[in-house]
């Protein structure tokens, strides 16, 4: 097509107007490109009388109308563990994914809160780019270079599955099935895909990895105090609160689809206080902002608690009935006084040594109803904690016991002693929050009718996160803000809540199987026990020896322990996201003979794997999606067929099972292997048949594809197929429109009330069921030996520890969740990078930049004793001085030396999170994947930063050289 060098085009002429030579060249760059559109006739330009209102030549407007066109749509969502669980409409044009829009058709159930629609964010709005992207994995690939080098050969599915199947068969034959690791996070974001690999792993005797604890998303204070992994109100409940504290939860960045409930509350009379070290993207929309020093939040919370207690603003009835505050503690041992120890106290219980004691108004000792010794296990709703006497909070007594006279005090008095340390002066000094301000917030919080704390990763990444959790939880407990609409402590980090838990669980685990706490597994196999501090090492070893926490492969009879051997990674980016990244690469990775990554895109884990299998994108499969942010269930459905040679996760693991079965049957040496731990045999010759069999109904070949697996989950869950009703939510129903769950199973802490948002803890607070703790109450006092030894029996503030020297590394290093990615997904997205700076940046306070001669846009080196990374410096005046803040999850290949944001983060573990409690039976705290186990520590890391000298190559501040 020829260009029209029209004489009217002044930019081609010589009128010499404002264009500089540079910009003219830029503008003219495109002119040589053949224009696709039609040009108006260049002669006979028609006259326009008045372009305002009476313009006549409007036929061209069809140009844009024709672009608003598509051939079909399909409903889907994204599986990225953002907690959003947003339903999208995916548009297909000419057989390809064109774009997506929020489906925006969640049914309204609560007329009083803002409309739930739409749900979504900018990242979800361009997932379509991944479907056809350069980074898409289209074929099975086998590594030809070093791990991470990005050199591959394309292999057939048959070759790939054969190679993997041989390795699996060898491992099982060698009785090293517990050296097969399967890492995939968060069932709720796509339970069928989750279960696909885990189901096979279970059948093989392999090991499923935890994730919620490993990612430090689990708030350990919740199992410690409330006996529950986490339970939250859905976000619509925020709007019903009169007072909200957003505590380290950067809602406006990390809960984009839910932020409206927080923002709209501004016009609904709600006061919103933000507690953030920086003037964060959520702080800007709060009514007050408190800015504690990094890691000092526990002291701030305890200071607020001290105000509430000393000014008697607490909810006494709640404390007496719902908490351990009236329980008596022995002064000599620090242990709870047990009913079995008290002379003459009659107890109607099998285990009176697990029964606790209170004092009534008359001064008589009384048994605390709901104690573990009176219950049949952790959850027992046949027992009530309702009181028929008035227990005293303030008790200091001498009691006649089997050990003679002992002094006892109530937990309340012990707590008051602890809190007395947190005077306004002390708290002001530790936190640098104004004493008047925080005390006023404490008073307002206590006096509000419905007060709520939204709690997030900003306060959960610390080494002492358990203490921090417990201190902040104390505020809602003291004020009785639990188990009612508009109250509570809502901790949102990780899409941990799968409403259809039962159905997923049955699909996932047809046979009993191994789980491992990933933090401990990683720590152990990175040989950290050989070089950590002696006390930590001793306690970790003790926890392993006591069988409080499992490590796989397990220790053999001869005392040896094999290395892990084979690892499957799917739906996650274990390698990139691993704390202790340097150790993982140098210690753990070489131990693995075969790493298989199953992925739609080439992320860092895929890059550092041996075989990469192409999986269906989120727009190419059937699955389900759920979250704790809302109470709907909605599906993934395929808008198009999987691109290239991709297959769904379900299909991939099914075909791997088929290959294993086929080869096992061909080989002479394969017989069923008795499982070392469970009463079953690992039978490779039937593994595919077992995989596709419906074990509930003993129906062969029932679970051949992902849609059947999704239907199976819906059918076997109380939430979607309630036992008291003939109605069932089917896959077709949710494809038509997202559906609110129909009921709530026993595994949650409240029932579902029609027309109201779900709010947790009602079964304890309103129905008076015992809390699933040792004492049957919200338990702030933990009399485990380790807690007593460490002075952590009650919430307390401890100086944050750090493995780096403060003098050498003066800056705190934090890696919060940011707006531009969900973990590492979208970190490499062109559309997203164009709205950032195209490369990793570190946010620095201008004073810290000036001190070091750093300017905005400079390339800097961020380093500590573990590693060093090159990034771009960004000026962030709202960041507190003394902090290097790097929004996390940049991929390794985004750094010049293939370092990583986690290269500066050690593997660090707090031993208090390894315990079993009670020590003998563990009903309150025992290892359960993603429920109780050590959290990974992301913060409490120190670094320094310096400019990278000129001439080192990457000059990203170079201006526009011609």
């Amino acid at each position, binding site marked *: 097509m020829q260009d029209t060098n029209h004489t009217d085009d002044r930019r081609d002429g010589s009128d010499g107007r404002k264009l500089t030579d540079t*910009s003219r060249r830029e503008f003219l760059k*495109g002119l040589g490109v053949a224009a696709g559109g039609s040009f108006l006739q260049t002669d006979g330009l028609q006259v326009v009388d008045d*372009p305002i209102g009476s313009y006549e030549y409007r036929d061209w407007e069809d140009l*844009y109308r024709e672009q*608003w066109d598509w051939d079909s749509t399909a409903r889907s969502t994204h599986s990225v563990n953002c907690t959003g669980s947003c339903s999208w409409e995916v548009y297909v044009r000419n057989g390809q994914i064109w774009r997506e829009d929020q489906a925006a058709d969640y049914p309204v159930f609560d007329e009083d809160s803002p409309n739930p629609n739409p749900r979504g964010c*900018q990242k979800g709005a361009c997932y379509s780019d991944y479907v056809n992207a350069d980074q898409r994995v289209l074929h099975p690939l086998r590594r030809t270079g070093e791990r991470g080098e990005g050199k591959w050969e394309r292999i057939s599915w048959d070759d790939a599955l054969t190679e993997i199947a041989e390795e699996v068969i060898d491992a099982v034959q060698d009785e090293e099935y517990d050296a097969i690791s399967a890492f995939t996070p968060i069932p709720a974001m796509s339970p069928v895909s989750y279960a696909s690999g885990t189901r096979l792993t279970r059948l093989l005797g392999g090991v499923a990895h935890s994730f919620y604890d490993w990612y430090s998303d689990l708030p350990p204070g919740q199992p410690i105090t409330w006996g529950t992994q986490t339970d939250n109100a859905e976000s619509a409940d925020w709007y019903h609160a009169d007072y909200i504290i957003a505590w380290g939860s950067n809602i406006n960045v990390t809960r984009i689809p839910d932020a409206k409930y927080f*923002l709209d509350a501004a016009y609904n009379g709600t006061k919103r206080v933000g507690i953030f070290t920086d003037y964060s993207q959520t702080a800007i929309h709060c009514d007050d902002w408190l800015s504690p020093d990094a890691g000092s939040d526990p002291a701030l919370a305890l200071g607020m608690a001290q105000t509430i207690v000393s000014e008697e603003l607490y909810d006494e009835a709640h404390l007496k009935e719902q908490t351990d505050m009236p329980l008596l503690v022995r002064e000599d041992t620090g242990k709870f006084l047990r009913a079995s120890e008290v002379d003459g106290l009659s107890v109607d219980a099998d285990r009176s040594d697990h029964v606790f004691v209170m004092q009534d108004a008359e001064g008589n000792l009384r048994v605390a109803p709901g104690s573990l010794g009176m219950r049949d296990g952790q959850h027992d709703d046949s027992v009530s904690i309702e009181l028929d006497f008035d227990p005293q909070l303030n008790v200091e007594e001498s009691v006649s016991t089997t050990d003679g006279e002992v002094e006892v005090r109530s937990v309340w008095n012990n707590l008051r002693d602890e809190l007395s340390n947190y005077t306004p002066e002390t708290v002001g000094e530790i936190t640098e929050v104004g004493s008047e301000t925080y005390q006023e917030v404490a008073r307002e919080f206590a006096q509000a009718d419905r007060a709520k704390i939204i709690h997030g990763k900003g306060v959960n990444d610390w080494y002492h996160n358990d203490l921090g959790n417990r201190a902040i939880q104390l505020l809602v407990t003291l004020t009785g803000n639990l188990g009612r609409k508009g109250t509570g402590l809502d901790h949102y980090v990780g899409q941990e809540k799968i409403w259809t838990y039962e159905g997923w669980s049955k699909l996932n685990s047809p046979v009993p199987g191994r789980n491992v706490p990933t933090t401990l597994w990683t720590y152990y196999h990175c040989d950290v026990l050989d070089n950590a501090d002696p006390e930590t090492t001793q306690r970790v070893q003790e926890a392993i020896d006591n069988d409080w926490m499992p490590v796989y492969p397990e220790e053999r009879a001869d005392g040896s322990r094999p290395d892990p051997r084979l690892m499957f990674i799917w739906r996650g980016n274990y390698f990139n996201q691993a704390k202790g990244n340097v150790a993982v690469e140098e210690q753990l990775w070489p131990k693995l003979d075969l790493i298989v990554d199953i992925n739609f895109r080439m992320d860092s884990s895929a890059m550092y794997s041996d075989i990469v299998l192409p999986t269906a994108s989120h727009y190419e499969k059937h699955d389900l999606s759920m979250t704790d942010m809302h109470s709907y269930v909605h599906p993934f459905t395929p808008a198009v067929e999987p691109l290239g040679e991709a297959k769904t996760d379900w299909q991939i693991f099914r075909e791997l099972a088929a290959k294993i079965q086929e080869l096992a049957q061909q080989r002479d040496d394969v017989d069923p292997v008795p499982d070392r731990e469970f009463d079953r045999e690992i039978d490779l010759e039937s593994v595919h048949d077992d995989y596709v069999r419906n074990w509930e109904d003993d129906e062969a070949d029932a679970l051949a594809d992902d849609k059947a697996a999704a239907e199976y989950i819906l059918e076997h869950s109380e939430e979607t197929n309630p036992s008291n009703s003939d109605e069932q939510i089917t896959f077709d129903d949710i494809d038509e429109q997202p559906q609110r769950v129909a009921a709530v199973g026993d595994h949650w802490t409240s029932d579902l009330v029609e027309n109201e948002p779900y709010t947790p803890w009602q079964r304890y607070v309103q129905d008076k069921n015992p809390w699933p703790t040792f004492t049957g109450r919200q338990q702030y006092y933990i009399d485990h030996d380790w807690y007593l030894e460490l002075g952590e029996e009650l919430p307390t503030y401890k100086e944050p520890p750090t493995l780096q020297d403060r003098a050498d590394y003066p800056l705190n290093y934090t890696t919060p969740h940011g707006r531009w990615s969900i973990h590492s997904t979208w970190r490499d997205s062109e559309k997203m990078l164009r709205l950032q700076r195209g490369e990793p940046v570190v946010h620095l306070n201008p004073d810290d930049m000036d001190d070091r001669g750093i300017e905005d846009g400079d390339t800097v080196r961020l380093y500590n004793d573990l590693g060093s990374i090159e990034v771009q410096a960004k000026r962030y*005046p709202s960041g507190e001085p003394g902090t290097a803040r790097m929004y996390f999850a940049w991929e390794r290949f985004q750094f010049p030396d293939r370092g990583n944001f986690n290269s500066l983060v050690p593997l660090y573990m707090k031993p208090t999170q390894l315990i079993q409690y009670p020590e003998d039976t563990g009903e309150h705290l025992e290892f359960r994947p993603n429920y109780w186990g050590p959290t990974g520590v992301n913060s409490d890391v120190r670094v320094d930063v310096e400019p990278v000298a000129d001439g080192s190559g990457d000059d990203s501040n170079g201006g526009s050289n011609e």
Partner: protein
Amino acid sequence: MSSHTDSSQTVDLAEGVNHQVAMVMDLNKCIGCQTCTIACKTNWTDSGGREYMYWNNVETKPGAGYPRDWEELGGGWDDEGEERTPGELPEQEDYGAPWDFNHEQIMYEGSDEPLRPMDDAADWAPNWDEDEGAGEYPNSYYFYLPRICNHCTHPSCVEACPRSALYKREEDGIVLVDQDRCRGYRYCVEGCPYKKVYYNAMKKKSEKCIFCYPRIEGEGPEGEVRGPACAEDCPPQLRMVGYLDDEQGPIHKLVNEYEVAVRLHPEFRTEPNVYYIPPFAPPKHTQDGESTDEERIPREYLEELFGPKVNDALDTINRERQRVRNGGESELMELLNSDRSEKYRLEVFDEA
């Protein structure tokens, strides 16, 4: 509703325009997530020489914005609103380049380079100064400003075009660049003080926000009337879309009755039809970390952006918020939380 015409007492529409589309954006709900930006991009500017364009952008204020320092490039009208004020053409680098990246080389070809914008071109971008703002910790301040074409009542871009290739639609006041008639002179780009007309070097034509007219007209295979993508897709639903002359709608009430929705840079005199609820923020801190009564965002800065009317607007909002917090009722507060069905009043003037 067809009897409703342009002769309302309180609403000034451009002469010859029957109805005027309008938008109110509540800056107290903008979280800078850019879902609007992406929704617009995937609808309209993802290819064909438009890659660098953001018909909808969100910028951090105070900040240089997109294109860089657009507020200083002139355009618009003089104080009397009669003579056009000279405007400058932004330099191409002030928009930022739509970077391409080297995914393929790194992931599949064994390159040991980092993933980076190719041609080492990254030194400015549409959102380069995100979250930066002004002031010093702990009294820094910033907020987000989403921007589209204002579909002005007195559009200087239309006046600027010697070919009369820009026009304002009679039925809804949407301002468009006739893609057949345009020759890409860029007088409109110079003339728009908001720099919301963009030059497409591949097509040699200027293009701009079309207020998603195919969506509001109910085009598309499903024949459904939808609001502009930037509004419909906004997660906090901070935008209301309708007609300025729809006196029953929330926009009219917010703009003309309560006067809490104000224009951006009214001194440009183009009479924008996009209005903003101005931002409030937590108060300043003392050196001891105490919260004070002092406003964090300087009023002078807000006046610079929104003119003197911003003061009454903020005072009204603060007063009504306090009323609700004390247990009272406020129609204004309810309007600001309008239900979704009220947020998009696009069919009120449809002929029966």
